[in-house]
């Protein structure tokens, strides 16, 4: 995992600089990277300076009177106790100041609500990204392109952040501000965001964009941006959303339009995934590779790189909601993949996944998706987050176990992972928990079993 990050970090070239800049020690609101965020910054500075000037007046008068009008200096107290003139003045002046502040603020809000260009014409949106909040990860769906993926705190942050992990968090790159799959968007494009949530209220916030917007279950909120500068921009969930509210960062990779087109082509499988190493400058390509291999099974990514179009396509789609139909297809192709991918001898003769492969994949999934609540040793934090060690669900009937993981448990933080993760991930993780933490059920849950209950 570390190696992958270093690789993508180095290859990201120019992106690295802005990544470092955002990790700098900040005192003030960032100016941001869109026209809008610049306006917000200017408004912030204006009202800040107005407050500073008023403050100098008020505190100056206060210090003067404390210094000059003290009994120890032998002064006699004055007798005045009202002055209509003065009172009218200090009522009227603040009103005028407030009007002066309200004007740009009104303009700014109208710009956020219904953006207009310099000529006053309504701005049209070039693309739409749907953002869904989950406890505790984000999902990004590219509505125009028909694909999407989950974005989760990276494993090294996730391990270092555990209490008593023994890892010095200062050694972790972008501690708590790094994800496996960043949102990738192009520069100089009007991008509409549609925000919603699948469980509790979250809030999507990248300070450099100049706004935050709540992701609310049952609602679709709207926001937009147009980023001028390519770079990596980081943010966090801003609305308390439960135990791991502090651990659902947001990372946005903004690519130049050509890099973005390339990245998109790869996501769509329109290009052969393997790119010549000479394309280092177009960081998008390289980032994509690591992103893709993070998001799906490593074995599968290998497959994707060596197989032609259709397979790449189906691989991408398995990460979206519609896993059901694709899977049988994919499994069929997997046996083909065996032939082209060297060292993939784990496949069983029955076409299912081997125990070793399920366990390896399961551990990976467990460490990104489950560890937050159930802990690395499965002990959980009962009763809110049950222990898997002495769980009857885990040691008992496998069908019940599949049901719990696939459909979640309503009224608790246990999410319906069948809708969020590819079936093979769900299968692998169920296999993993049923054969870890002291359990030795020997059950081998196959992706097909998950599909079956999702039907």
């Amino acid at each position: 995992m570390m190696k992958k990050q270093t690789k993508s970090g180095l290859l990201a070239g120019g992106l690295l600089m802005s990544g470092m800049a955002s990790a700098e020690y900040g005192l003030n609101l960032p100016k941001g990277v869109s026209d809008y965020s610049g306006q917000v910054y200017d408004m912030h500075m204006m009202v800040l300076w107005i407050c500073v000037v008023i403050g100098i007046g008020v505190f100056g008068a206060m210090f003067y009177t404390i210094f000059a009008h003290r009994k120890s200096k032998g002064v006699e107290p004055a007798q005045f106790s009202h002055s209509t003139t003065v009172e009218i003045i200090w009522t009227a002046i603040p009103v005028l100041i407030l009007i002066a502040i309200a004007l740009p603020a009104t303009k700014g809000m109208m710009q956020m609500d219904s953006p207009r260009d310099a000529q006053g014409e309504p701005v049209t949106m070039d693309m739409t990204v749907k953002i869904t909040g989950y406890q505790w990860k984000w999902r990004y769906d590219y509505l125009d392109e028909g694909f999407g993926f989950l974005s989760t705190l990276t494993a090294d942050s996730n391990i270092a952040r555990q209490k008593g992990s023994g890892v010095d968090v200062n050694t972790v790159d972008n501690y708590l501000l790094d994800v496996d799959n960043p949102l990738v968007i192009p520069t100089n494009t009007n991008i509409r965001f549609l925000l919603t949530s699948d469980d509790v209220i979250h809030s999507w916030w990248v300070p450099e964009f100049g706004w935050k917007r709540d992701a609310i279950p049952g609602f679709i909120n709207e926001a937009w941006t147009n980023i001028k500068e390519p770079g990596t921009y980081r943010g966090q969930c801003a609305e308390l959303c439960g135990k791991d509210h502090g651990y659902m960062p947001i990372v946005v990779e903004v690519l130049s339009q050509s890099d973005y087109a390339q990245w998109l082509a790869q996501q769509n499988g329109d290009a052969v995934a393997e790119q010549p190493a000479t394309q280092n400058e177009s960081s998008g390509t390289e980032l994509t590779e690591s992103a893709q291999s993070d998001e799906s099974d490593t074995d599968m990514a290998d497959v994707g790189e060596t197989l032609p179009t259709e397979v790449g396509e189906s691989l991408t789609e398995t990460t979206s909601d519609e896993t059901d139909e694709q899977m049988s297809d994919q499994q069929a192709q997997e046996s083909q993949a065996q032939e082209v991918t060297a060292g993939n001898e784990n496949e069983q003769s029955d076409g299912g996944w081997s125990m070793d492969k399920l366990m390896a994949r399961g551990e990976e999934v467990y460490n990104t998706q489950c560890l937050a609540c159930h802990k690395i040793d499965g002990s959980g934090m009962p009763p809110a987050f049950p222990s898997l060690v002495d769980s009857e669900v885990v040691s008992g009937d496998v069908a019940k176990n599949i049901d719990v993981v696939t459909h979640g448990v309503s009224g608790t933080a246990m999410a319906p992972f069948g809708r969020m993760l590819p079936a093979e991930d769900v299968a692998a993780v169920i296999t993993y928990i049923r054969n870890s933490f002291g359990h030795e059920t020997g059950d081998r849950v196959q992706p097909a079993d998950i599909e079956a209950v999702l039907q």
Partner: protein
Amino acid sequence: MSHDITHDELSQDHDHKPKGFVNRWLLTTNHKDIGTMYLVFALAMFILGGSMAMVIRLELFQPGLQFVEPFFFNQMTTMHALFMIFGAVMPAFVGLANWMVPMMIGAPDMALPRLNNFSFWLLPFAFVVLASTFFMPGGAPAGGWTMYPPLVLQGGQNVAFLVFAVHLMGISSILGAINIIATIVNMRAPNVGYLNMPMFVWTWLITAFLLILVMPVLAGAVTMLLTDRYFGTSFFNAAGGGDPVMFQHIFWFFGHPEVYIMILPSFGIVSEIIPTFARKRLFGYVSMVYATAAIAFLSFIVWAHHMFSVGMPLGGQLYFMYATMLIAVPTGVKVFNWLATMWRGAMTFETPMLFSIAFVALFTIGGFSGVMMALAPVDLQYHDTYFIVAHFHYVLVPGSVFAIIAAAYYWLPKWTGHMYDERLGKIHFWWSAISVNVLFFPQHFLGLAGMPRRIPDYSTQFAEFNMWSSIGGFAFGLAQVFFVYIVIKTVRGGQKATSQVWEDAKGLEWTVPSPAPHHTFDEYKPVDLNRMAHGDTH
């Protein structure tokens, strides 16, 4: 019942104090004893809520998790807020009202003494119910004091306890408020008109109306949470056709006036103290009354400025922005009036005055960040970050809490008959005033630099300011333990206080002996208006 006992023992006790712990405290109907119980209760809750804040600052001292799990951290932030708001600040104000309002208007007691006893004794039970959740499976409420669904409904068994505790606190507040209004309207000495009343009485009258108007709204909101959780309703459940944002509207319709419930009595307190130590009448008394009423009115029509990020229509956002900005005007008037009261006075700087001046200065800083956040587009950056944590702690800690501490030093000699130790009081002031700024000022920077609130761990670029903030926090916490020591020392003994206590201080409370006898003003007769603390009404 207790009445008979006091009659029997009349000869031994000039104060008519009931004998025995049960009669004196549990069954008391005396406004001073109930006031004392409120104040002691508030101090205990302040220390408890403060220790939760210490846990928070300890965990945030450096990045990485060292002491508590994130889930427990969320319980700490939630319970810290509930304890401080409903357990410390509000009961402290009610305690001050109990002690001072009857004495300030020449009344023998509160209008409804038994109700007074009941409204106090609800509180310890409410907080036992609330605190008991710490020992339950699933732990204490961890969804924030704002109790937003759907998150709060994931709380397991604690939801019911949270809701019932809030109900009890609400009933206590409503009854207390009814009592205060009834007292002020009906029990003033015969020649005391409304515009003769001290500012503290005025601010409490207005606060009491706020309480009566908004506490039932909170009760309604939490009751809907209860039925959503246990009886299958869908008020706030989108899947059942409900609306999670509706809860926020209802909550903040309570919540914003609640903010002023916690600050208006502070305005009253410093409006008593500053004239005393400036040896000059309060400047612009009438405009102070109008400004307080204006702030109270505005507090009902600005609630959604807490919710700019939920995606309201443009018109709604603009309206709430403009209405919010208006609050700056009457609040500014108040600050200017306090300054003008000090202007060309003959000031001395005893501990209550020091805390009051610090109140005016630091509350103004909280006011500035308030104006900044009124601007909706910029608020979308500040919202839910440490910037707002800094803002509301500036108005609540060096705001409300400093005012309460100032009131305690100002009236302790009247309550106990002993002067507090001025040297220790000044140490307490400087210790608190410096540490509170080390604690909260860096949080402005943290918020602007992008640190969200309510997180147990943070990215390493936030480490330095968090460390400063924690150091300030520990120092401030320790200073308040020192305050408890000063109070206990004063109760136990010290220089005898005169009835006047402070040179030339206005106010009927200074016409009765120190400590104030168990019963004061028990004859219905005119008082000397020149001794009242009101300002010049032309």
